């Protein structure tokens, strides 16, 4: 397997608190890779390092063979890594369409409108393009964030807890959406708490704890890993969080 994204020995601490302690991981092309772990295990920190929002203290992140660690977020985004956020971050005051349009324009202004419409179609929001984004129901806001990321035409889509706050039906629909996106040839890296969703859609799972890689591999294998069970699955209340 040639890795699209290769994370090696990434470490990060904040004012003395260790968030990542030498994490290594590989994300294969056109796969869905999930990062799991209890709260505070460093999942979001890892995404933030990969997308440039945090600067790693050490370690390397290579995308398509290019070193991206330490590069600014917009540079990384232009290279083909698009992300969503744990807490929804839409452009305040923008319509649904404008949110996606401004992202599509990053790949040039010609045909940007059409590309924006296509991205909305993928997530199923083409019909509500003229609405104010702030007025959308919660699940739709999550989809809109995904559409906006897709509109930048990324090679890899990085999602931070995309199912957070969704009901069961919405989660199923989200899973289907992620399959659709993967089938378009995109790679997906996500952080997710919902085990059923993770186990159902992932090709590959990475489990973190205390900023370290605990286990990595196929979902079934990770699920059986005794360390993972002890750290995470053994505590059902954490799994539900």
């Amino acid at each position, binding site marked *: 397997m040639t890795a699209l994204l290769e994370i090696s020995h990434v470490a990060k601490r904040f004012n003395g608190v260790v968030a990542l302690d030498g994490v290594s991981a590989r994300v294969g092309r056109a796969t869905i890779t999930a990062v799991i772990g209890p709260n505070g295990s460093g999942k979001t920190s890892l995404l933030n390092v990969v997308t440039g929002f945090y600067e790693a203290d050490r370690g390397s992140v290579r995308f398509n063979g290019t070193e991206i660690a330490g590069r600014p977020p917009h*540079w990384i985004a232009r290279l083909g890594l698009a992300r969503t956020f744990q807490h929804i971050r839409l452009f305040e005051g923008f319509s649904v369409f404008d949110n996606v349009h401004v992202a599509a324009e*990053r790949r040039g202004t010609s045909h940007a409108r059409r590309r924006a419409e296509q991205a909305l179609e993928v997530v199923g929001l083409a019909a509500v393009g003229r609405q104010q984004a702030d007025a959308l129901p919660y699940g739709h806001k999550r989809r809109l964030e995904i559409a906006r990321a897709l509109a930048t035409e990324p090679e890899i889509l990085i999602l931070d807890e995309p199912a957070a706050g969704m009901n069961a039906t919405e989660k199923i629909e989200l899973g289907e959406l992620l399959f659709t996106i993967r089938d378009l040839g995109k790679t997906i890296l996500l952080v997710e708490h919902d085990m059923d969703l993770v186990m159902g859609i992932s090709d590959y799972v990475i489990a973190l704890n205390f900023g370290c890689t605990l286990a990595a591999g196929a979902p079934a294998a990770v699920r059986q890993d005794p360390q993972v069970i002890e750290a995470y699955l053994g505590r059902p209340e954490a799994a539900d969080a």
Partner: protein
Amino acid sequence: MSEWLASYENVVALVLLNGILGIAAYLMLIVNRFSLATGGLMAIGAYVSVLATMNFGVPFALTLVLGGVTAAVMALLLGAPVLRIEGDYFALATLAFTEIVRIIALNWESVTGGALGIVGIPTETQIWQLALALAALTAAVFAVHRSAAGRVLAAIRGDEMAAAAIGIDVARARLLTFVASGAICGVAGAFAGHLNFFIGPSDFGMIRSIDAIVYAVFGGLGGVLGPVVGALVYTVLPEMLRFSAQAREILLSLVIILAVLFMPRGLISLNLPLRRWLPRRRGQRGKLAAGQGVAAE
């Protein structure tokens, strides 16, 4: 009418000039930066253009360009390191800049005349020129709002992190905005320098910077007309309140407090017919979440 104009010519000139400054401040506010550099950049534009007129006989139109370009270059040099400073820290760093410019102007006597200033400047600035400049600037900003560049600025205002995540170079966009804002301040300074026969360091202190922001915020940040309306009301109000010399200051501050309380999103948030002239994205909700979230994490 001509008699009225004779009585209020300078008021009209100041309204137009302040409108220009208000837009300069507005541009920085819409990229979430509270810039107090306005006074300092304006001073640079004013001194450069006035010295060009007085010492080298440069034509007025050219001194406007000169003032604008010098201030823009200064903004570039200042902005590159300073713009990465966030939130209120940025405001105070730019305040420091403005105060340092003022202190240099006070001390660099051979060039600026120190506190005594420069006297006997030919008054080249005409009302129609100011009106034209303000109209052109308003139109230009309006056009920018409608363009892809305007959407980039709006995205930064809407959410900085999300903007970066879709590949917008927030720092660069902000620097360019700061340079544009600096150029506007410089041109405004050049106009101001040729308005009243005289300039001195006290014309361009912190108060000037704060006033410019007041025009923009007081007027409303929903669109480019906000700062213009803000400048109009804020400049004319003291003149209107002249009927009471004693209580003028008290009335003026009360009016501002009431306006802020009852129109917390600025004058332009009123349901004026002007509204359709504003860019589409002025929201029903005026609260700028991103403005508060600038101190990351």
